[in-house]
């Protein structure tokens, strides 16, 4: 059975190869091939899942060794897969949501002449992402890690003729590279410490290692996670990444890739558990990001950017949870999965809206769309309820657990984190309501002459519906006598937190803040009409619109500073380094034309020099002897 694991990766990989090298002749069938292979991969996943369920909890991990990849001296990297409950969860999420989005894209990209390539990239992404979660060692994970980075680069910049898209793609890759630096350093640290970087031995050996080393490794892993999961301070790329086609935003920049950081931290749980400082850093990052993302989300008028902000903040929740240790891992993953459903659903909804509004993204030019695209409205609405944590829907269960766990951290930390999480919940409710109202309610702010909003074709709506269903029930399903937690426990281990405030209080307060958020939003956007042009807004709003000046900062420090540095270096290279060389040559020439002068052409001067030479010769000889 375990020999099927490779198939999970192979299927989409083959698809990518076919579609990217196949050339024009595949233009008409390409998208079907791509989708088929994605679904196939999903099927394999399901099969494996069934097999896994058939076993007892501690024999569920499967392992498949393919071949020895890089053997040099003590350095041994294998291409080998490890499929345990954690990986399994991801495999299902990735292939499942992935397949749905493939299907959706068939409709969404219908009129794009480069659709074949688009599906090629999507398949490439699936393959890389699966490699990431299936790898049994950090180096192979690194391959998947950069692979998804590449796929996201290609897809963000899919419409390359738009300079903005190209720039965004480049930015995403670069920021991620910074994170990758962290990952590679972490791997090097592991190699020097343990002599290996396979999950098994490394995580097993954490006990025998100095905390300092583990903290270093942990921080480096965190850096990597920040890059990939758009956490502060490396979050700046996610907003721009919305330049990509919406399905991409749904799959890569909402449901799967951006959660890789959470996977990495959870996977390396053993390391973090043994390195409290690193853990603290993680929770801080998580808390900060969940607020940051939420605030940014409130200010954006671009529907996708708003959703992007929300993605950031939701992942902030997950990271926060993962940072809490055994009491949080399971919930982090659980929220990750539910988030996968509703955020993907929301994005697909947004895509469907844009599809109907000929690619308008400014929510101020929407309004009252609910009667024009009912299905979209319905699915989007359900997603909305799920994300704000409306009782009974997925978001409610997963987020609520995280908030509890945050309080359970105990001490002032616990209060701060819990408070942050609660506040975040409120803001989430606010900005999501804002999106909802601006898009589907109020009077229409678009010109009926140009735009004729219409419902999207079945092929697009069906996936939306499926996801909506997921976002409604998943959370509840997982929480039935903690099935999800027990499922993950063998991998992530689980500990019940003892929160100073009782679970019911937390739940109650969440609902309260939720209502607060929704209420304010309704007061601001529901009651009075939304201006078609954005008002100047408060200082905070303006800052939030500019991602809280993040980019301005980067621009000032890295871009400007960097350009200055390089240009000066170029000068130095020419004047100093090369100058030294040319200088020597020149001075030789000078010396030469100087010495030439001795050659006056006058016999007598020659004679003089000869005589002088003779004198010197004699003198020297005599001196040698000291006579």
């Amino acid at each position, binding site marked *: 059975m375990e020999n099927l694991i490779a198939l999970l990766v192979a299927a989409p990989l083959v698809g990518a190869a076919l579609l990217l090298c196949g050339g024009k002749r595949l233009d008409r069938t390409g998208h079907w091939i791509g989708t088929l292979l994605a679904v196939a991969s999903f099927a394999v996943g399901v099969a494996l899942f069934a097999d896994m369920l058939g076993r007892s909890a501690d024999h569920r991990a499967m392992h498949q060794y393919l071949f020895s990849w890089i*053997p040099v001296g003590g350095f041994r990297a294998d291409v080998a897969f490890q499929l345990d409950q954690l990986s399994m969860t991801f495999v299902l999420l990735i292939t499942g949501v992935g397949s749905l989005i493939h299907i959706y894209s068939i409709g969404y990209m219908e009129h794009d002449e480069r659709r074949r390539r688009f599906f090629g990239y999507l398949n490439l992404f699936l393959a890389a992402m699966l490699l990431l979660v299936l790898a049994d060692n950090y180096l192979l994970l690194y391959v998947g890690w950069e692979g998804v980075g590449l796929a996201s680069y290609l897809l963000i910049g899919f419409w390359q003729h738009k300079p903005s898209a190209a720039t965004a793609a480049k930015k995403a890759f670069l920021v991620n590279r910074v994170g*990758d*630096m962290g990952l590679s350093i972490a791997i090097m640290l592991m190699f020097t410490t343990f002599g290996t970087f396979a999950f098994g031995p490394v995580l097993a050996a954490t006990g025998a290692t100095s905390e300092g080393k583990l903290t270093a490794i942990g921080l480096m892993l965190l850096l990597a996670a920040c890059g990939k999961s758009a956490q502060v301070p490396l979050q700046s790329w996610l907003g721009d990444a919305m330049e990509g086609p919406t399905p991409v935003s749904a799959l890569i920049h909402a449901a799967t890739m951006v959660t890789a950081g959470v996977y990495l931290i959870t996977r390396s749980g053993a390391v973090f558990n043994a390195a409290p400082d690193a853990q603290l850093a993680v929770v801080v990052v998580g808390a900060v990001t969940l607020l940051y993302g939420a605030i940014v989300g409130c200010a954006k008028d671009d529907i996708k950017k708003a959703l992007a902000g929300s993605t950031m903040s939701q992942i902030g929740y997950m990271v926060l949870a993962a940072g809490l240790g055994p009491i949080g891992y399971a919930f982090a993953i659980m929220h990750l999965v539910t988030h996968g459903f509703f955020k993907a659903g929301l994005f697909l909804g947004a895509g469907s809206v844009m599809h109907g509004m000929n690619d308008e993204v400014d929510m101020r030019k929407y309004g009252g769309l609910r009667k024009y695209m009912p299905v979209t409205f319905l699915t989007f609405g359900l997603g909305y309820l799920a994300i704000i944590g409306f009782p009974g829907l997925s978001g409610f269960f997963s987020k609520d657990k995280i908030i509890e766990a945050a309080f359970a951290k105990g001490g002032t930390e616990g209060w701060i984190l819990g408070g942050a999480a609660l506040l975040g919940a409120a803001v989430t409710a606010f900005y999501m309501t804002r999106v909802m109202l601006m898009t589907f309610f109020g009077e229409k702010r678009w010109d009926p002459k140009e735009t004729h909003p219409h419902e999207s074709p079945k092929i697009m709506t069906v996936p939306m519906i499926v996801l909506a269903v997921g976002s409604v029930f998943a959370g509840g399903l997982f929480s039935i006598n903690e099935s999800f937690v027990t499922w993950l426990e063998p991998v992530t281990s689980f500990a019940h937190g003892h929160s100073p405030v009782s679970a019911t209080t937390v739940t109650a307060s969440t609902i309260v803040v939720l209502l607060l958020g929704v209420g304010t939003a309704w007061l601001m956007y529901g009651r009075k009409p939304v201006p078609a042009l954005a008002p100047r807004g408060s200082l905070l709003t303006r800052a939030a619109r500019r991602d809280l000046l993040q980019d301005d900062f980067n621009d000032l420090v890295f871009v400007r500073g960097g350009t200055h540095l390089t240009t000066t270096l170029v000068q130095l290279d020419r004047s100093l380094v090369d100058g030294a060389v040319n200088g020597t040559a020149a001075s030789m020439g000078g010396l030469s034309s100087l010495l030439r002068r001795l050659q006056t052409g006058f016999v007598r001067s020659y004679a003089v020099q000869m005589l002088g030479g003779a004198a010197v010769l004699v003198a020297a000889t005599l001196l040698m002897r000291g006579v």
Partner: protein
Amino acid sequence: MSFPLLTATAVVPAVGAIATAALPAAKRTAAKWLALLFSLITFALALVVAFRFDPGAGAPFQLTESHAWIRDFGVRYELGVDGIAVALIALTTLLIPFIILAGWHDADPLEEATPNRRWRPTQGFFALILAVEAMVVLSFEATDVFLFYIFFEAMLIPMYFLIGGFGDRAGRDGEEEAAGRRSYAAVKFLLYNLAGGLIMLAAVIGLYAVTADQLGTGTFSLQQIVEARTAGTLNIGTGTERLLFLGFFFAFAVKAPLWPLHTWLPGAMGESTSPVAVLITAVVDKVGTFAMLRFCLQLFPEASSWATPVILVLALISIVYGALLAVAQRDIKRLIAYASISHFGFIILGIFAMTSQGQGGATLYMVNHGISTAALMLVAGFLISRRGSRLIADYGGVQKVAPVLAGTFLIGGLATLSLPGLAPFVSEFLVLVGTFTRYPVIGIIATLGIVLAALYVLVLYQRTMTGPVKAEVTNMPDLRVRELVVVAPLIALLLFLGVYPKPLTDLVNPAVQHTLSVVDKKDPKPTVQVNAVPGEGRHGHAANDQDVEAAK
């Protein structure tokens, strides 16, 4: 005495050079095909060498040949290959056919040029390429220091004519201007390397003097010297050894090139046609790094470890400095040149990290960098030949009109920024790890290189390939068949070696271990001993254990 395989591998291209040069002016196309044929035969021979070579065998050098040559100088015609040499010979002979194919039209006389029965640039071009190949191969094979030196120096001359004699068509300012810059670059290349070589000559002579003084008869045989060292019959005084080492290293550092001796490279690569640029950076420069590994370390172990700190710092500077300058370049080829400087920094870093990962990685790096730069540079050459300009600013939106060209260019670029899954990643990571295990700080700073690499590659790609289509490139043809034939195999190779580098590592490891044993360095042991691996697959161990053996 079996068939002299190694000699043959070098003689074939030499003969080819003569044959090609001999063809009359009218027979231009014939000359091209002839050159291609000979380069392919050479490659075949190289493959035979690779198969006949047995990594497992104990002897450091195999397929050895040894004949008396210049007794008075203690020089023997001694050839032999270790894994490293085999890999590099394979690389060289593999690249040459592509270089020839890529340069198919680079040496065609200008249309308006008056036909001249005597002047045969095309024949000359391909003959020179083959000549360089012959000399490079020999310098990889030579196990006699003097023999090596001879070809190390002699290869400068044909290179010099290749750089100075042939360049990109047209350009902004007329042919005259271009010719001026070309010959300047060529002269700079030659003098720089000649100076290095002559310094080395002094050291070579010094080495002879020492051996003659202590062994009775002066010798240049690498093996003899190494054995004499280990046997204790030869011990060079510390001071002398350091001087000799510096003499050798200087020459190799110029060739490699290592900061601050790099300034000849951008000019040479910028002004010459891209196939020649590939020849410089992917083939000829490798001799420098190869020689560090084979001669500097094995002849002067103490001095090497004495100089290591400084060299590591210089290498580090090369990495960062080269990358930063690459970012600032406006000229595609110069950009790639500076990128190469950065990469050579990595190679040298790996060599002098003195760990099996470092040196193994460095060797892989030489091969992979050869292939990746070839891919990138040649595609860049195709691009330039279409537009007649090397300036990045003159391009834009190419990806729309020539998607295949853009795609291959991107893959070449991704290889250059060593994306996992492509060959260069393996080597770069090995070098980093190898360095990190012994010099953590340097290792960490070196990782900056991977970010900067991403920067210059992606900026280059963005500015040339994406965005709105520039007017001048609107009707730019996509890759032609010949060009695809050049690029596709290289890319395939990059992918294969990225996924399954084991053949290469198996080839290289023993040689690296031997070098390390000569230098008397051991890999640092991990601080925490990990006991039997629970999660890992059973099949795994069988395969891995022998690697462990190899490590011992």
